[in-house]
Every structure is written in C-alpha cells, then in structure tokens.
C-alpha cells in the first residue's frame, strides 16, 4: 500500500510549460557565452524552445483535461491560443535578431524574458482559478515591463517601460481587488465552483459580486487595452522597441482575451445579464475611441496602437454575446489579428532600419516603387485590418458580426461596421502613402555592396540594409493573411474546437 499520497501530476498536460521553463534556463545560460555567435546561438535555442512547446501543445490538442487540482485547464481554447503566443514570440525574436534597439541588452536576458512572458501567457490562457489567473497575468506582465525599457539609449523606451509598469500595476491591483470580491461573494477561487455557487445561491445580482466583476473587468481591460483603459497603449507602443511592440500588440492581446473569454464565459456566466451590457458599452467605447484616435497619427506605431484598441473593441463584441459562436469568432479573429499585425510591424521594423525616419508614416512613403516586397505586405496588412474581402480580416469581421447578430446584439454588429468605416480613413492613408506619394527624399540610398556584416545596425538614425529575415516575416504573414482569407476552414476548425472546450 502506498503510504504517500502525492497529488497526481499530469506531466503530459504540463509538458508545454515544462519545455518553456527548461528553455528559459538554457537560453539564460547560453546568453552568458561571449563571442560573435552568441546572438545566433541564443536565438536558435529560444526558437527551438518555442518549437518544442508548440509541438507539445499540438500533441495535447483535443485532450481537454484539468491539471494541478483544477487550477489549470489544458483544453483546446488554451492550446489553440498558445500557438498565437508562440508565433508572436518567434516573430519578435526573429525581428530583434539584428534590431539595433535591443542590442543594448544582453541577448540572453532578452530572450529569457520573452520566454518567461510566453510562459505567463500559457498559464493565463489555461487558468481556471482566480489564483492561477493572477499568477499568469503577472508572469506575463513583469518581463514585458523590462522588455519595453530594453533600449537603454532611447529616452522614450525607458519612459515606455516606466509608464507600462505604473499603469500595468494599477491594472493588476484593480484586478486583484476585484478577484478578492468575487472570492468573497462566492467562497471559491475555482471558476467552475464560482459559477455553480452563483447558480445555486441565486446571488447573480449580489452587489459584492457585481463590484468584483466590474473591478476584474477593469483590470483585464487595462491588459487588453480596451477603452477607456487604453491610455498607456499609444505611448508604450511608440516607445518600446518595435519587435517588443509587435509581441505586445499580438500576444498580450491574445492572452488577455483568452482569460476574458474564460472568466466571463465560464466563471461569471450565470450573471451574464448583468455584465453583457457593460461589456457592450466598453466595446462601443473602444471601437469609437480607437478608430477616432488613430486618425491623424503620423507615427505608424501609434496608429497601430489605436487600431489595436479598436480591434479589441471588435473582439469584445464576441465576448459580450457569450455564445459558442461568439467565442469561436474571437479565437478566429485573434489568429487573423496575429497575421495582419505581424505583416505591418515587420515592415515598420524594416523601414526603421532603412530610412532613419523611425516609424513615421513618411518612412513608408513611396515604397510601392522602391520596395515592392515590403509595400505589398504592408498594404495587405492594412487592408486586412480594415476588413477588405479576400483577406483574413474580412472573414474575421464577418464571423464577429454573425456572432453578434445571433446573440441578439445586432446593433453591436452595426457598430462594428461603422467603426470599420471610420478606420478606413487611417488604414487607407497608409496605403496611399505607400503607393501614391513620392518616396521621402531624405532617404539615403543604400549602396548595394554595403557589405554583409551581420552586426551592421547599431543605433537609431543609422541607415543599413533590410535583413532578409524581416522581409521574410512580412511576406509570410501577408501570404497567410491572404491564404486564410480565401481558405479559412483550417483556422475555423481550430476555433470550433476551442469553443467546444467551454460550451
């Protein structure tokens, strides 16, 4: 007879997390090495870690089980969104490979922080318990605070890091306060038990609980940059090194929506009648503020920041309805969002290096003639974000509207399309700059024989060639945005599986 009753640990279910944490240690150690090859070595090790984690997640797909006494769920919702995190992290690594801004930090630390953040996201996406939720959220946020400030030579980068730290902490505190209220009202930290306790005791309208939900929603809205809790977004997006911005824009948003979906569609679902209108109001505010704010931005990163606020509003519409269709549409949109944003950010990275104009819209003026290989991905990214047909953004919006209409929120569907109309004003402005304006004369022509030194780029303002891997990322993401716009079925199937994990 066994004397020791150790809790059962499902190592298979935890394997992606184990791979990630193992990878963090390896990457950190590799980073200590000195020599010209360190950067390549560390990046490959980190990419390998992500590949391993992705493989293990793919292996676990369809298992749908609870881990660690129900604290984590390894279901298809969590696992399918994990791929978004892995992909975004891989993109960030590849983009920073020769990015001048991040070479100030030790590459080992940088890559390890990135992987830690991904670990936090994986935990957060699977969180099925208020404690895990908070642990995951902090694990994801704290490395990001540092990563924003990694470009030590640029004041704005430090400012971004500090701003994100302060506002992120306020968000976390608000969330924690809200979670405490929810626990106080229901007497449980487990999502399933919270829901059943609400159903059993009929405390749907309990003010304690509602306050808790409201505070938790506020905290999560900070993370997902949902208006009116979005003020940090443009500043931080602009100040952070662009690869980090790309990672934050895509992965943080996806992680935040993963937990928003699980929190609202599982834990506090019985109180849906109380929160759906509030969330709908947040969605409308985001769509309006994001789209209006983006008009007139000259910085591409600020523009994309406001656009991300608006996109968060669209996705929130899928949460509001609280149906399987709504959840599916959000998951699908997150995949679409990954492709569209990566295409855009990769081009920004490339032009930052090439022109010395930073992320100003001038930097992409006239690249339709001079750099068609960058112009097309940016154009496709912008058109997809605007929801033009033939791109993945169109299918995504179609899906969201279908979800909204079916969930008796047809008016929210109309708000989405009105937001999309407004968004044309700034997305098309970028497209017009790309194709219809002469190139900036300030651009110094780059000699073709500039030499192949891998470490050519140093600091902002220095003009150098576009690394091939940046172009490759942009082209692949844009090709994906078109391909999944024409044949969206694989992603839709994945989204449908994700929805089945909850409904």
């Amino acid at each position, binding site marked *: 007879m066994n004397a020791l009753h150790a809790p059962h640990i499902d190592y298979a279910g935890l394997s992606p997390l184990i791979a990630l944490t193992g990878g963090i240690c390896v990457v950190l150690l590799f980073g200590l090495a000195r020599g010209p090859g360190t950067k390549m070595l560390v990046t490959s090790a980190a990419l390998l870690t992500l590949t391993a984690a992705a493989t293990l997640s793919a292996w676990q797909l369809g298992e749908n089980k609870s881990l660690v006494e129900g604290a984590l769920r390894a279901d298809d919702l969590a696992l399918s969104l994990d791929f978004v995190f892995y992909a975004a992290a891989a993109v960030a690594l590849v983009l920073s490979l020769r990015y001048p801004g991040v070479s100030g930090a030790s590459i080992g630390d940088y890559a390890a922080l990135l992987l830690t953040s991904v670990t936090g996201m994986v935990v957060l996406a699977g969180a099925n318990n208020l404690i895990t939720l908070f642990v995951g959220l902090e694990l994801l946020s704290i490395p990001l605070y540092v990563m924003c400030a990694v470009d030590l030579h640029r004041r704005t980068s430090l400012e971004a890091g500090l701003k994100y730290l302060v506002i992120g902490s306020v968000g976390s505190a608000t969330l924690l306060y809200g979670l405490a209220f929810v626990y106080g009202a229901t007497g449980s930290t487990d999502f399933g038990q919270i829901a059943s306790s609400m159903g059993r005791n009929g405390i749907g309208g309990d003010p304690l609980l509602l306050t808790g939900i409201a505070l938790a929603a506020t905290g999560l809205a900070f993370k997902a940059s949902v208006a009116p809790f979005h003020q940090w977004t443009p500043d931080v997006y602009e100040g952070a090194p662009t690869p980090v911005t790309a990672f934050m824009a895509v992965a943080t948003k996806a992680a935040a929506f993963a937990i928003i979906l699980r929190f609202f569609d599982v834990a506090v679902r019985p109180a849906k009648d109380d929160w759906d209108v509030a969330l709908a109001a947040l969605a409308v505010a985001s769509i309006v503020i994001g789209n209006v704010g983006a008009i007139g931005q000259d910085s591409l990163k600020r523009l994309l920041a406001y656009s991300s606020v608006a996109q968060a509003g669209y996705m929130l519409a899928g949460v509001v309805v609280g149906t399987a269709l709504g959840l599916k549409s959000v998951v699908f949109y997150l995949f679409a969002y990954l492709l569209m944003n990566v295409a855009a950010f990769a081009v920004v990275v490339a032009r930052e290096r090439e022109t010395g104009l930073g992320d100003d819209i001038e930097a992409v003026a006239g690249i339709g003639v001079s750099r068609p290989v960058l112009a097309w991905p940016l154009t496709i990214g912008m058109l997809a974000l605007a929801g033009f047909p*033939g791109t993945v953004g*169109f299918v995504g919006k179609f899906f969201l509207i279908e979800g909204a*209409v*079916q969930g008796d929120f047809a008016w929210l569907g109309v708000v989405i*399309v009105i937001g999309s109309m407004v968004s*044309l004003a700034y997305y*098309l402005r970028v497209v*017009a700059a790309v194709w219809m304006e002469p190139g900036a004369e300030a651009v110094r022509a780059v000699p073709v024989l500039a030499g192949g030194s891998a470490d050519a780029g140093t600091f902002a303002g220095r003009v150098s060639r576009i690394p091939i891997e940046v172009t490759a990322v942009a082209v692949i993401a844009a090709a994906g945005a078109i391909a999944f716009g024409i044949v969206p079925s694989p992603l839709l199937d994945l989204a449908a599986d994700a929805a089945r994990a909850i409904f």
Partner: protein
Amino acid sequence: MLSILIFLPLLGGIISAAWPRGGDDGGWRAGYVSLLFATVTLGISIGLIADFDSKAGLQHVTDFSWISQLGIHYKIGVDGLNLFLIALTALLWTGATAWSLFRQWPRPRNYYLMLALGETAALGAFCAQDLALFVLFFDLMLVPFYFLIGIWGGERRVQATTKFVIYTLVGSFLMLAGAVATGVLAAGNGQHVTFELSELAGRHLSTGTQDWIFLFFAAAFLVKMPAFPLHGWLPDAYRAAPTPVLTVLSGVLSKVGAYGFLRIALPLYPDAAVHFQDLLLVIALVSILYGSVMAFSQDSATMVVAYSSIAQLGFITLGIFSLRAEGAQGAVLQMVNHGLVVAPLFFIIALLSARAGGTDDLRRMGGLAARAPVLAALFLIVSLATLAIPGSANFMGEFLILTGVLKAKIVYALVAGTGVALAAVYMIRLYQRSMHNPLAAGAESRELTTADGLVIVPVVAVILALALYPQFVLHRSEKAVGTVVQQPQGAYIR
C-alpha cells in the same frame, strides 16, 4: 466554366504582373497578355449567350460549400438578369485593356494586374448566387479601383480616390452587416445559417427586419450607382480617373448597384421594397432631374457625361422600383444600353480633348468634325443612342421603364417623361459644342487612328445591333425578371 470566366482575367493580370521586365517596351507585352486573356473572357461570355436557354432558370451553376462553418457557398450561375451584364463587362474591359495598351503607363505591370482584378471582381459580383459571395466580390471591386484612380489618375487623384472609396465602403460595410443579419435572422429554429440566394428567398424575414436591412442594401447600391443624395464622390473620381478606368467605372460598376436591387433587394426583402417604393421612386426622379440639369450646365465634356449617367441610372432605378415586369425589363435593357453608350462616349471625349489641346472644356472645343467624318459619325450614333432617339435600344428601354411606372404610379411617369426631353437637350449641346461651330483656337480636327477605332467601332456596332433587335435581350431576360418582380407584387396585393 463560369469560374474560368471569372478568374481568367485575374490569371492574365498575374501573368502580366510577373512578366519579365526585359527591354524598354513600356509594359507593352505585359499589357498584351492581359488583353489576350480579356479577349478570351469576352469569347466565353459570348459563348454563354449563344448557349443560353431562355426558358430555363439558373444555368451553368457551380455550387460547393466554401466556408461550411459560416454557411457560405461558392455558388455562381447565369440567368436572364446577369447574362448580358456579364457580356457587357467582358466587352468593356476588353476595350479598356486595348485602349490602355495603345498608351504609355508608368508601372504598367501593376496597372494591368489591377485592371484585371477589377474585371474578376465585377464578373464575380454579377455571377454570385450567394449573398456572402456577392458582398465579397462587391467590396473586392473597390480595391483595384482605389489603386487605379489613386496611382494612375489625374490631378488631385489621392483625394478623389479616398473620397470614392470611403463613400462606397460606407455602403458596402452596411451591406455586410445587412447580409450577415439576413443569413442569421432568416434561419428559423433548427435551420442552418445559409447565404444562398435561392434558399434565402424561400425563407421569410419579419417586416421590421426587412426594412432596416433593405435600407442598408439600398445605401450600398445607391452609392455605387450613384443616385442623387449619395453622388458626392462622382465628380472628383470621374475627373481624376484615367479614361479606360473611367469607362469601366461608369459602364460596369454603376450597373452592379442597379443589378444588386434586382438580384438581392427585391427577391429577399419584398415587403420592404413595397414599403419603400415611393422613397426609391422619388430618389430616382430627383436623380433624373438633377443629373440632367447638371449635365446641361457643365463646361467639361467629361462632367456632362458623368452627370448624364446619374440621370440614366435614375431611369434604371425608376424601372426597377415600378415593381412591374415591364419596368424591370426596361431596366435590364437600359443597364446594357447605358454601359454600351457611356464607354465609347468617354473614349471619344478623350480623343476630343487630345485634339483640343488636352482639355475637355467645351468652350475650347468646336469644329472638331471638319476633318474627321468617321469620328463624327461614331460620336453622333452614340449621342443619339444616349438621348434615346426612337429606333435605338435605349428608346425601347426607356419606353418600357415608363410603361412600367405608368402602370404602377402615374405621377412619377409624367415627371420622368421630362427627363427624356432633357437628355436630348444636353446630348445635343455636347455634340454641337464639340463637333460643330468654327474650329476653336488651339484645336485641331484629326481623324481617329486605326488603333482607337478598333476599340470604339465594335462597341458602336453592338449598339447598332441592339437598336435593330432589342428583343434579343428582352427575350432572354423575360423569365428571370418575371421571377424577381413576382415576390414584391405578391406583397403589393397583400
């Protein structure tokens, strides 16, 4: 078969875009490839007409589930409504491509790609038999035209193209919401969400739902046509667009809007169509009068034709919303007619302004007919067809439209009749000012070149053929039109 028709131009466009840059031929070879593909497309569309069975319903149907999770089918087919519009699209695009070929363009490869993408999208919109597919192609049309006007346009092109896209996309996005709502709300309990038009027509939406969705669709279609209060993008876009783009913009794209009423709005929202009949008739009427008066007062020849198309499209709307078989028949005929006359008109105006020192200002034209009898004759034929002189197919079209409206609402028909007279006024003014009178200073009367003739003459030949035998169209569209107006008429009697 039909899919080949739709995607063949795009294939040609992609080949031209990828055509090697060898030599300084100004993209001539790349354009040649595009022209070849456009011509084959035209051939297929003529084959469709020859093969058409006017007694059967939807033909050459391709139908498979495209995005099953969303209930979207890839369903395309031909019937009496779109048969001739497809041929018109193929014809005008072949003409536009050929016209482009004889001229120099900067960045020719991208140009032909965009032109071809436009043809594919327009053909797709005409062929689509699934609401979501229609919306997709309808919106897709904007992308190439945004670039075509914005990159290759005249002065103030970026402003013009932005205005154009925002105007039209406002309608399109509303339509997207309406389309999704139609699919979802029409699915009763237990039914699958579908966007297939034939399926949707069988389901019933509540009257209130029909009303708002109908208004969304009407907004999209009226912007595209454009009709009176929603035509703000038209002057700028028409002024900035390069001639070949202008011909297809005015000749084909405006028809997609009118076609949308027949294909989508009337069969799916019959109650709303009856409910808003008066509103649409008033819009049509105002468009006719406003377009005619504006056309009469313009100095720019391009703008005369631009405003005249507002008036012409007003007639088409009038015919459709008579909700009578005659009116709708006339509308279908008139859509083809207008496409056929407006394209050569814009080509001829481009030729005239080349002869008048690069301006299309009527005050600086005049006497251009003196040494150009062929050009003058072609222009005269087209002008007379535009003002619907008895004997032309346009006369037949307008006659049918007015008959339909007379039967439905007599008041509107009486007012619309003045529009016919106004058309004569502005067209004759256009012709006289440019072709007659003494030769203007700085202008030169020159015959048209063989190359330009090759573009214009076939289109004029089709105008003449239809004038002799308009039944060719009417006979084939009769059955489909009957089906379309049947539903609203049923609602009418209720």
